[in-house]
């Protein structure tokens, strides 16, 4: 057998069904073999970055199904591999296991600046969990199996396999034998502690039982370990409200009575105020990112911190813990739930305090959403998202891009389905939505998938409309077009004296663009058309694009300014200088 055959055999054994990618000189032999075999569904992206995000979509969406899969993307050497970089760096930041297979120039010419040669291993090292470059065909199969093991063991992450062209074609010896079933990688330094230790668990229970003002944190780890149900049970059992990180959203229903919504920079008033006053934070599967904590030395100063996290290097990195539990979130919750020492406490005063926080801007938000339009009579993004949520009863899968509309989608969609929210968090990669939605749709074909982008991010990977056209994928595409890079514009209007440097953007006629790809399109400018347009997209069998003309001056609030603490939270739109605004943000 040859290297390429062994590569594909190993991918098949690992349950891979889809391969996303783009061929080219140095990967042609693998593509040729794949075509002969016909065992994988090959999805040709229109840019390699798209392939990496599609692979992410598969991994993320399928992890809560009966058949979890690892997304695989494939590209040629040099520019092909370099185009994967952004998608891989994004997967690394968001702990998403994917496998990237790249072709490499033949071993005989490596490091001679051959045509389309790049040092792929060198480039990928700091943005991937591991890299492999098999130098002989008999290493290929072992490398693939080890790559899958590394990618999904412990905290997930991308793994890169860089396979020289001659190795793809090389024959293994007659007596080559590899026992895939019994293969266990020898990685003496790769520790993984899924089960929580007894002693810290005891101290955690003590702290939980004693606490008067506790808050639970639901991070990406809850989604990744499929522990949403357990966390809900736990929260109900101990009667503690839950705040979500961006990636923790949809682990439990967004309208659960104990839910505080998202925390951090664009988090809800109730989540951030509760954290500010808490005496105990119980964090599950998250890493206290700067967008979550704000200024570190002001963060939750009076709170003890229990940190349950699979990656030991995240514990005590940004926030000092009182109790560190280095373990899998699911197993930890499982053990905690079975512990009879854990008690239910009414904590009436804390509940009242929190319902006070909930009221701070609730009425204004309700009115704003109901009014539906901004100053110039253009649509509000939050209203569009809210109406989508109502129409779909919060049951659909939402794939957001990066920016203002992403925060709107995170805040105003009423997530009911477990693992139904997908976005780029740590890296914040614009353009991720359209390709990631393709992966999500392929992983969960029976569910409705919405890709929500701004006009800026959409144009970063708009070429993937070609993939949607070719594969006839039923992805509903929403463009919230406000003619600006909205999030940057928001910062400019708040902190840069309203000078809109580099943010106004002239977009093409999205109608003509979607027509070119044979995708039906509707432009929505009036509030009364929002719901009918969304309904039309729902009723249409197949992809449809909706463009909403939105108000550029809309803000996503509250907002904690970058580098600020929770006390600096901006709750209401600042009034122009001169007008009375004595009650700004001061009340609680």
């Amino acid at each position, binding site marked *: 057998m040859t290297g390429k055959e062994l590569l594909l055999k190993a991918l098949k054994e690992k349950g891979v069904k889809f391969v996303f990618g783009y061929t080219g000189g140095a990967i042609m032999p693998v593509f040729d073999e794949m075509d002969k075999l016909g065992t994988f569904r090959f999805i040709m992206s229109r840019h390699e970055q798209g392939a990496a995000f599609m692979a992410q979509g598969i991994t993320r969406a399928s992890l809560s199904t009966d058949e979890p899969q690892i997304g695989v993307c494939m590209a040629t050497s040099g520019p092909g591999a370099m185009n994967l970089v952004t998608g891989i760096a994004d997967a690394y930041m968001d702990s998403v296991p994917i496998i990237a297979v790249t072709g490499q120039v033949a071993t005989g010419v490596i490091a001679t600046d051959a045509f389309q040669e790049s040092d792929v*291993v*060198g480039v990928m*090292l*700091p943005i991937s*969990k*591991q*890299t492999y470059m098999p130098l002989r065909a008999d290493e290929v199969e072992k490398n693939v199996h080890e790559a899958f093991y*590394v990618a999904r063991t412990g905290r997930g992450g991308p793994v890169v396999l860089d396979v020289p062209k001659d190795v793809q074609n090389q024959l293994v010896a007659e007596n080559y034998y590899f026992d895939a079933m019994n293969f266990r990688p020898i*990685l*003496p*330094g*790769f*520790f993984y502690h899924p089960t929580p230790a007894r002693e810290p668990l005891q101290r955690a229970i003590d702290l939980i039982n004693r606490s008067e003002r506790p808050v639970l944190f639901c991070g990406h780890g809850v989604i990744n370990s499929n522990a949403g149900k357990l966390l809900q049970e736990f929260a109900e059992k101990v009667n503690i409200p839950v705040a979500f990180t961006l990636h923790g959203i949809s682990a439990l229903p967004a309208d659960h009575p104990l839910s505080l919504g998202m925390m951090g920079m664009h988090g809800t008033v109730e989540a951030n105020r509760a954290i500010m006053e808490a005496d105990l934070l119980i964090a599950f599967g998250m890493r206290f990112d700067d967008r979550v904590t704000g200024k570190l030395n002001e963060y939750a100063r009076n709170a003890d911190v229990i940190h349950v996290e699979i*990656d*030991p*290097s995240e*514990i*005590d*990195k940004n926030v*000092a813990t009182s109790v560190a539990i280095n373990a899998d979130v699911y197993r930890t919750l499982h053990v905690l739930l079975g512990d009879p020492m854990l008690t239910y406490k009414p904590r009436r005063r804390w509940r009242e305090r929190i319902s006070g926080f909930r009221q701070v801007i609730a009425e204004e938000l309700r009115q704003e959403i109901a009014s539906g339009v901004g100053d110039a009579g253009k649509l509000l993004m939050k209203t569009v998202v809210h109406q989508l949520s109502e129409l779909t009863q919060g049951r659909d899968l939402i794939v957001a891009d990066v920016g203002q509309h992403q925060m709107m989608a995170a805040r105003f969609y009423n997530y009911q389905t477990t693992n139904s929210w997908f976005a780029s968090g740590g890296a914040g990669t614009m353009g991720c939505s359209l390709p990631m939605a393709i992966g999500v749709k392929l992983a969960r074909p029976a569910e409705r998938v919405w890709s929500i982008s701004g006009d800026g991010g959409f144009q970063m990977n708009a070429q993937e409309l070609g993939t949607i056209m070719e594969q006839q994928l039923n992805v509903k595409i929403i463009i919230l077009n406000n003619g600006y890079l909205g999030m940057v514009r928001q910062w400019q209007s708040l902190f840069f004296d309203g000078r809109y440097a580099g943010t106004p953007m002239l977009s093409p006629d999205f109608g003509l663009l979607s027509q070119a790809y044979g995708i039906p399109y509707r432009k929505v400018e009036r509030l009364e058309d929002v719901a009918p347009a969304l309904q039309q997209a729902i009723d249409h069998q197949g992809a449809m694009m909706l463009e909403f003309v939105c108000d550029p001056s809309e803000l996503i609030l509250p907002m904690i300014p970058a580098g600020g603490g929770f006390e600096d939270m901006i709750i209401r739109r600042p009034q122009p200088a001169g007008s009375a605004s004595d009650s700004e943000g001061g009340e609680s």
Partner: protein
Amino acid sequence: MKRRAILAFMLDRPGVLNKVSMLIRKKMYNVDTLTVCSSRKPGVSRMTITLREDDQARVNQVIRQLEKFTEVISVKELDTDHSYWREVAIVKLEVDGMHLESFRDRYNFEILNQQANEICILQVAGSTRNIDAFLDEVGQEHIIEIARTGVTALEK
């Protein structure tokens, strides 16, 4: 800033040194010294890194992130109270043999080569401070070239 020594055992594979140095660069340190040798176990290397940092939490971060590499087997910090830190210097100097003999009782050096009583090559082993002191006492003006290994360390 306080000097720290980090001892790490890792698989002897291509790219591992690259990963370690990249992590230290990412954490914005300049490596003071770095020594690598094979360990008693075949296929496992032993690395001693010294860098400067006052904040213990940041040192712990480096250690934990080093441990995260699949090739790295174990990492720990060695402090000066509970470990020996030593290095070797090879020095080429132009000096009178008699002058050198006067240091014999205080410094552990060995003359490797002496030509016509003028150019001398010697090796000296000891702590960083000890070697610095030796070089100062011999007289920097006599020294033509120095090669130092950097620190290697062993726990008591």
